[in-house]
Each structure stands twice: as C-alpha cells, then as structure tokens.
C-alpha cells in the first residue's frame, strides 16, 4: 500500500536512523510530496538556521501516488532552507528516483547533521546504510551515478547525486538523477554538499499494493488518453519543451541580453525544429525519452554535433537552456546551447539561475560596473559564446573574482560588485527569473513576484492566459472546485481577475506536487488536462482514500500557507526587494522593445500591479502586509503550527 511507505530521519553527524510510519491524519492534512515536505521543514528547522549548517534539514520525498498505477508519478521533491534565498528551498525533478525510493519502502527522508567525510546514503528494501563516498567525491553527476552502481555491484540502483558545484557550495547547485533530470532551483545541491552528502542511492523490490487494481488500471488508461490527446502534449512529445521557447519567443516573451529586449533575434539555429534536426541526425528518428510511466516523453536525446565537446551524449535541452545559454546571453547558437546544457548537467548547476546570472554579469560588463580586470581578461560581452561556456566552468569551480561572486547568488554578488549592479538583477526573493519576460503579461508577473520559492514559473503560473480563451471557458476552469464570482479576462495584457488565476494555479500545482505527478498532466500548458475534479478517483483507486475535489483544494491551500509561514518566519516582508513579493524596477520602467504589436511598448503598471497583489492576498486570506489572518489559519486548521505531529 502506498500509505504504508515510511518516513526516515537520518542524522549524518551521529549516524542515527529512525524510521516511522506516516499517520493517516497527517496524510489527510498534507497528502505527501511537497506539501508534507513543507510541513516537515517548518517543524524540523529553527528560525534563522544557517542554510549551509548541519541544522538545516534536507527533505527528500515522493508524492502519495509515487509508483502507483497512476500516470507519470515520477517526480522527486527536495526541500530545505535555501542557501540562495535564505527562504524556502524547493526543487522538483522527474526521472526514476522517487519510484525506486517508494519500492525501497520510503516516501520521505529528513536528513540532518553533517557527515565527517564524504558519504552517501543507501536505501535497500527498508534498510538504510550510510556509506563512504570519498572515491566518488569530485566526480560529475553521471560519473557519480555509475560509480555508485559499481560500488554496490547493482546496475538497477537509482541515485540522486550532486556534482562538483554542490561540493563547492555554489548556492544554486542542483541535485540530479539520470542524465538530465535536475531538482534545479534554490540550491538544494549546495545543502547536500554542506552535509558532505554526495548521493542518496535506492534499490527496491517491495510491493506497493494498489487498493483497486482493476479500476486503477482502467482509469490510468483513460487518464493517459486524456493527457496524450492534448495537442500541446503531442507536440511536446515530438519537439520537447523547446517548443514552448519557440512559441514564446515569437510573440516577445523571452528575455534577451539580460532584460534589454524581450525577443531573441537571429535565433534560427536554436528554434525547436533546428534542435530537433540535430537530435534526428545524432540519435535517429526515435530520439524522445520519458520519465517513469509517462507517455508524453518530452525529453529529447542528442549528441553535441560540433565543437570541443562533439559527440557527448545528453538529454534536453529544455526550453530553459535555450533561454539561459541562447537568448539571455545573446548567443543563439545550437552548439553553445547544447554544450552549456551538457556542462551544467555534468557539474550539477541550475541552468536557469546560471544563465540569468551570466547575462546579468554581461550587462554589468557592458555598463562598466565590472571590467576585464575583474574577469581576469575574459571578454564578458553579450554574444561571446566562449565566454558563456568558460563562465559555467569558472562558477562551478569558483575561479576568479566575478565567478566566485556569482557562485554565491545574485544578491550577495551585487553587494560585492556594488554601484548600481543590483538595479540590473532580474530576481525575486534572491532567485533569478528564468528566461521569460513578463512585462506584457501581468498575470505571469504576479506569479513570479509571489511564488513561494522566488522568481519561478512552476509554482503558480497561469500559462493558459496566453491562449486568449473565451471568458466562459475561463470561468469553467477557474470556477472549480470553489466558485469564483469575480471577473476574468481573456486578454493576457489585462490585470482583471489575474490574481484569482494565480491563486487557483498555485493550489493546482501544489496538488500536483503532493500527488507526485508531472505538471504536464494538469492545467499548466493544456486546458483539457486533469485537475481537482479528476484526482479523487485516481487517489481512491490507488490508495483507497476518499477525498472530494474541494477537500483536495483545501489541502493544497493549507500546504501553500505552510510554505508562506516558513517564508514569513525567515524574513519575508511584502515590499522588500530582496526578500519580498516585489519585482525589480525594470518591470515598471522599461517597456518591451520587440515582439508582437500588442506587446511592443508594454510594461507593468506599478499601481495596478500593487492592487493585484492586494487582491491576491485577499484570496489567500492574508492581511495587506502579507501575513495570514488568524481566521485563515483557523479555517485551514493550522493555527497551532508547528504542531510536531511527525
């Protein structure tokens, strides 16, 4: 049974390991995955704890549906206090790790302390062992995984690992599994590095009983048909996520030269079709791969076609790599993007963060705020492909003044660079924005400003806002499972009703992350995909637990509020440019210069934007300072948190 998967508390300092069941009342309040992780983080961390100190708990989990007979239950979630932001750290990845951990008997791990020497955790059918990793330390992410398989003499072992960047405490180092699946954001790899923890390896052959197997199988088939029939998923299955990059760039929603433009020109070489052709040439016609149980198969396989890294195998590049190493740095060349993608995969760094920071440094170089003296002679100008690749390596190994500063994250680096460098930094809560440009889309701007882990698209983005759906359709989607009587607008440049859409999506994505399934299987890019209405059935058939759509909504809202409580405890204040729900001034001062006619000239209207935040707070049950009202906490049954139930 999924419900009999356990939680393990592992202390790397003392070597103590405690295994506990997850009580049903905890499940009913927080389900699992990211929601329960948030509960665990709030309960197991002390206010103001050092993100890179032994007291910061590193929490790793699968969702309540992980490895059950539901569709695409591949996601692993990682949570801790972030060394990048000092606030909530949260990262999520596909692949095969979380299912293996579930077959090995566990849904959640809470890891505290610091190992004396480099170590890794091995979990095998209910048993947990801390093993020596001194021979693996220093290796890249893929080398580490194969070394662990050799060490255990078992090719079926699945590992979550860090690369050299995590060891070197780069604050945006990621954790990785497989070739390219990355728990990328907020520096969870650095937290592992700070604990001398190189990897977590799992191997499991324990049954997960399915409550109603016949129904679960049939419903899974229906679910998959619903998911694969969506045109957007079909296209993802052919072109991968670069498809999104191509579409967004065409209307003017891609940051270029840091934030100077909102569209990348002369980008033929990295259009989705061009990347697809490289995959075709280097791998063959069937070059798409999938995560566990997923029929969308959005991962493209490729070999680098030319240059010094020619022939190296990798997967992706995701649209974020096209943005990070193509548009933001104004180097729209396939070879650069594919090589950059490969390097960050191998070193274990967040491609979104590093691309954004390199392009920021390029703008500072252009402005004379940093000079070639600071870069040890590297010509850090926009459009310099070699400089992009060189900076990736320098940041990983923290070589030189500029790279070492960037490795600490944008805000600390801005304090080192001084002058007006902070004004150019495109971030929220200390985390850089991905490559997308939200100046023409107030709803998306609100999303990045208020997302719990910083400037991010996967926590509350109403991406379907760009489809200009009829209001009737919008009301049907956003009016369930709780009614919404306010106005909604089909126009993506509008401010009307966007606060509700962001609030709805925030709950929808939290639901998905608690279940442990992929966002391509809900209303993210596709309008017809499963959501609150469909989840009760899949939960019932697989676990036997009964929920109404409204109850699942309440759980999501509760878990989001727990994340908010953590952020507030760690210093979030509404208008703080470093730790608040606020955008960089450039969103309000610099209009879009490229793109579709209805985009050119647009920027965010600050007055309307602040009103949107007021509205958003109201939907969430926060006061105008952004703190939860007492009645909200009572309604969500979390007035006594932290409650230490688990």
């Amino acid at each position, binding site marked *: 049974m999924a419900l009999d998967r356990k939680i393990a508390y592992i202390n790397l300092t003392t070597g103590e390991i405690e295994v506990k069941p997850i009580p049903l009342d905890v499940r009913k309040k927080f389900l699992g995955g990211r929601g329960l992780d948030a509960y665990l983080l709030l309960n197991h961390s002390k206010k103001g704890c050092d993100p890179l100190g032994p007291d910061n708990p590193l929490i790793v989990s699968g969702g309540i549906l992980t*490895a*059950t*007979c539901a569709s695409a239950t591949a996601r692993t979630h990682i949570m801790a206090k972030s060394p990048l932001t000092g606030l909530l750290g949260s990262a999520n990845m596909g692949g*095969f790790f979380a299912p293996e951990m579930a*077959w090995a008997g566990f849904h959640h791990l809470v890891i505290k302390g610091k190992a004396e020497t480099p170590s890794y955790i091995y979990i095998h059918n209910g048993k947990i062992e801390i093993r020596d990793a001194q021979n693996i330390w220093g290796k890249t992410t*893929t080398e580490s995984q*194969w070394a662990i398989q050799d060490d255990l003499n078992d090719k079926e072992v699945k590992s979550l690992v860090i690369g050299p960047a995590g060891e070197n405490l780069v604050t945006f180092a990621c954790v990785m599994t*497989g*070739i390219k699946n990355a728990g990328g954001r907020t520096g969870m790899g650095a937290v592992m590095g700070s604990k001398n923890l190189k990897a977590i390896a799992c191997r499991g*052959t*324990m*049954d*997960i*009983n*399915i409550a109603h*197997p016949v129904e*679960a*199988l049939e419903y*899974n*088939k229906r679910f*998959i048909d619903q998911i*694969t029939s969506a045109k957007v998923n079909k296209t993802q299955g052919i072109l991968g996520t670069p498809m999104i990059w191509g579409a967004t760039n065409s209307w003017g929603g891609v940051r270029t030269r840091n934030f100077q433009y909102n569209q990348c020109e002369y980008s033929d070489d990295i259009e989705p079709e061009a990347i697809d052709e490289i995959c075709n040439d280097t*791998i*063959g*016609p*069937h*070059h*798409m*791969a*999938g*995560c*566990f*149980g*997923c*029929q969308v*198969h959005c991962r493209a*396989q490729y070999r680098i076609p030319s240059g010094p890294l020619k022939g190296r*195998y990798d*997967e992706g590049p995701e649209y974020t790599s096209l943005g990070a190493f193509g548009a933001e740095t104004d180097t729209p060349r396939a070879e650069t993007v594919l090589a950059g993608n490969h390097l960050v995969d191998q070193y274990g760094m967040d491609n979104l963060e590093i691309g954004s920071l390199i392009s920021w440094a390029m703008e500072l170089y252009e402005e004379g705020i940093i000079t070639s003296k600071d870069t040890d002679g590297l010509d850090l100008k926009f459009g310099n492909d070699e400089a992009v690749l060189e900076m990736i390596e320098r940041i990983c190994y923290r070589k030189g003044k500029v790279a070492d500063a960037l490795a600490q994250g944008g805000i600390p680096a801005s304090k080192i660079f001084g002058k007006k460098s902070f004004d150019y930094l495109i971030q929220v809560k200390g985390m850089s924005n991905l490559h997308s440009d939200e100046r023409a889309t107030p709803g998306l701007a609100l999303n990045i400003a208020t997302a719990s882990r910083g400037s991010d698209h996967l926590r509350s983005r109403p991406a379907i806002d760009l489809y200009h759906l009829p209001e009737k359709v919008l009301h049907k989607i956003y009016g369930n499972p709780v009614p919404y009587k306010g106005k909604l607008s089909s126009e993506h440049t509008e401010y009307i009703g966007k606060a509700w859409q962001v609030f709805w999506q925030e709950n929808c994505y939290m639901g998905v992350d608690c279940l442990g399934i992929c966002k391509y299987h809900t209303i993210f890019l596709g309008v017809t995909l499963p959501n609150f209405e469909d989840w009760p059935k899949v939960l019932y058939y697989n676990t036997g637990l009964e929920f109404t759509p409204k109850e699942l909504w309440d759980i999501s809202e509760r878990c989001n509020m727990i994340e908010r409580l953590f952020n507030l405890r760690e210093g979030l204040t509404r208008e703080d440019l470093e730790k608040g729900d606020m955008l960089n001034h450039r969103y309000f001062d610099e209009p879009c210069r490229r793109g579709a006619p209805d985009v050119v000239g647009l920027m965010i209207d600050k007055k309307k934007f602040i009103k949107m935040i007021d509205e958003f707070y109201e939907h969430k049950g926060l006061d105008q300072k952004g703190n939860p009202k007492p009645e909200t906490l009572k309604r969500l049954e979390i007035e006594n948190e932290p409650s230490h139930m688990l």
Partner: protein
Amino acid sequence: METKDKVLMINPEKCTGCRLCELVCAVKHDGVSNPARSRIRVVKWEMDGVYIPMACQQCQDAPCMKVCPVHAITRNDELNTIEVDYDKCIGCRSCVSICPFGAMGFNSIDRQVFKCDLCDGDPQCVRFCEVEALEYIDADDVAILKKQEAAKKLYATSHKVALKEA
C-alpha cells in the same frame, strides 16, 4: 479473439524507456506495483540513451520447456504461449537459469517462477505503449514490417546521398 500465431513484437528503437509496461504488467497480474514482478523489463544503457524491453519470446523450441524435470512447462497452441503449470512446478528454477533472454523470473515474495502469458491475448504492455515500441501482431507480419522499416531507412539514406550529389 483470433490469437493463434500472434506474437509480441518489440521495437527497441521506439522505446522511450518510461517503464510503464513494467508497471501495468505487475498491476494486471499481481494487483501491485513492483517491477520485480513484471514479466517485461526495460534494460537500459543510459549513457547512450538506449532502452531495450526484454520479454518472453514464447520460443518454438523452448529451452525452459525442455529443461523442466517435472514437465510443468507446456506450449499452449491456442494462445501461442509457453505456460507454467503451478500444480506440477517444484520451484527448482532450472527454467530461470536456462532461458537465454532472462524472461523467466523468480518471485522471492511468493517463491514462484513467473513468465509472460500475453495476458491471455490482450497484452497490457502493448495496450499502454503509446509509442508502439511493443506490438501484438501476426507472426507472419513481423518480417514484412521489419522489411518496410529497413527499406524506409535505406530510402532515406540514398535520398540524402542523392541530394548531396545534386
């Protein structure tokens, strides 16, 4: 259903490595999720992006059938499958060691050997494989389908060469 002479055809090139086949196989046969119980397994070379689903070939001259000391393994001509009679099986695992494909499994929870039964003519792995890396087709058609695929490749290559020369 006409199942005689139908076979499971595996097209490794099309496999995305998602292992949904393993999941649905275990759920269908044992009502649980556990790849260790799956009759089909995807073997991977991750560093090359190569994924190969491995399952019972339902051999004509099946080594497992021949090696079985108690004649518990027989051919079902109706379904074109090799079957294990659990009333006769003594669990010696000779079949497991002799199978050249590793297709005969041993389940250490139930202490029993297990193998693909093509779900009695409706293989779930095939039903769930959207990319058609697994197909359930007439044995006669396997070769012609492979010929067509090979011809396609041949044509594409010669076309490319011709274009280059032009």
